[in-house]
Structures are given as C-alpha cells and as structure tokens.
C-alpha cells in the first residue's frame, strides 16, 4: 500500500479513524480488513446500535467515519443513525445493508447517511463508496 495515496490517510499522514457498528463479527472483521488495507484505522467496533451510539459519543471527536449496519438487534441502524445525527449533525455515516428493505436505505440517506454499502461485501465496491464519502469530506473542509 502506498500510504501517500491511500484513501484512508489524512494529508498529515495519520489514518482516518473508523467506527464499525455491526451485529456480525464476520462483517466487522471483513470491513476492518478492507479498510485497514486502504490506510484507515479502526477506532472501535460495536455489535448493536445502543453500544454503537455509546462508542461514538465516547470516541467523539476522534471518529472520522462510521459504518453502520441496518438490521441489528436492540436498536436498528436507522434509529442509531438518527441518534448519532442528533448528537453530531456532521457525522459521516455509511450504511451497510444486504438490502431487503430498500425503503430503509432511502430513509437513512434522507436522515443524513452519506452513502451505503451492499452485502455481500466486495472489496473494490466498498472502497469506491468509502472513497466517495472521504472525497466529499475533504471538499467540505
């Protein structure tokens, strides 16, 4: 990996920090591998929406990006997104979904999610979506 050009590296050479919220340990592992291979660092992970919201608040403002599963126990992804946006309306959240309910993806995008990733995860497609969000973040600074 060329750290200078990697999507997950800031101009000062430090990695963008990602919080991964997903009830599947498999998806957390897969996303972490894909993201770290492109220079991102995993700031933390959570296995449900309540824990994810708590972690976001604990880590704030050191989280640059959140990946958030839509279907989760306790508090689903859209409800978690609403709470995160209430706390930080500049949060950069990317939804992760196996689809099923496309209306929930639309609702998440209207609530403030920056983009979404579809499972099964394809490394190239994941990085494409994440890099789109990172480019938009950089343009906003």
């Amino acid at each position, binding site marked *: 990996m060329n750290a200078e050009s990697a999507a997950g590296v800031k101009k000062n050479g430090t990695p963008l920090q990602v919080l991964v919220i997903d*009830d*599947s*340990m*498999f*998806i957390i*592992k897969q996303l972490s591998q894909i993201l770290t291979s492109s220079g991102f660092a995993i700031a933390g992970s959570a296995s449900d929406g309540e824990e994810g919201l708590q972690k976001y608040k604990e880590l704030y403002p050191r989280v640059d990006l959140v990946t958030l599963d839509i*279907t*989760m*126990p306790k508090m689903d992804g859209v409800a978690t997104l609403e709470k995160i946006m209430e706390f930080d309306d500049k949060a950069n959240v990317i939804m992760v*979904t*196996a*689809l*099923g*309910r*496309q209306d929930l993806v639309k609702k998440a995008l209207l609530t403030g999610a920056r983009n979404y990733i579809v*499972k*099964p995860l*394809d490394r190239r497609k994941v990085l494409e979506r994440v890099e789109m969000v990172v480019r938009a973040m950089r343009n906003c600074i």
Partner: protein
Amino acid sequence: MRVEYINPFVEASFYVLKEVLGTELRRGKLCMREAAKPRLGVTSRVGLSGDVSGWVLIDMSRETALAVASAMNEEKLPDFDELAQATIGELTNMITANAVTRLHAAGFNFDLTPPFLFYGAYKGGKRISINDEALIIPIEMPMGTVEINVAVREKE
C-alpha cells in the same frame, strides 16, 4: 405457498453463495416437506414478516458449515467457533435479504429479523422445527450440501 415466492429464494441462494464462495454450485431437486425441520446439524434461521409470516432456515452439516465459514473468511478456521457461527449467520442474512429485495421488486412487502444460529444442543431439530409446509432448495457445493428451507404463510 405461492409460486411467486419460490424463484426469488432460489435465485438469491445461488447469487449469494456464488458471490461469497466463488465456486461452482449445482441445484438439487426442489421439494416440499410438511415442516421446516433442521436435519444436518448446523441451522441458521431468519424470520419473515410483512405480507406474510414465515421463516428461512439454512441447514448444513458442521463440516460443511466450517468449510463454508473458512472460505468466506479466506482462512482455515480451526473450529466452529464464534467467528464461524457469525459467518454462517451472516450468510443466512444475506441470502434472505437478497430474496426479500427481489420480492419487493415484484411488489411483495416482506421484512426480516436478524439471524439466529442453532447447533449442537439442538440436535434433532426439536427446538426449531416449524410446522408449516416448507420449500426445500438443496444446493450442492464442493464443500458439501446446504439445504435452504423456506416456510412462508400468508397472513389471514
């Protein structure tokens, strides 16, 4: 069970398994059983709601489940541990959600619950048998056979 429900599940099973395993698959003969009953040892279940109530069970032997989980993780997992279980649960979630997406496109309103995995102590399937007629989709892969049980009942 309505015929229109069958193809989305068959297509979703093939699409997702092929995508995550990157291997050749062969569909066995579709059949109906009186109940969705786990038979092979490791079973993951997702609930369906909306226009219907029902369940999808994904059933395979422990050896097949471990081989599938290893392939999906791109590393040989030594045992059917927490990661392997999460991987099979996620596989079920992806197949069911993909089918539900196809059903939405066809005008049906289905929703789904997070996956739940059963194995070991639930041998014989007594604890999770579903007494609704089920469509069985057997899929043969190099690492063994997986049986997808789809039991869907329209709400009255």
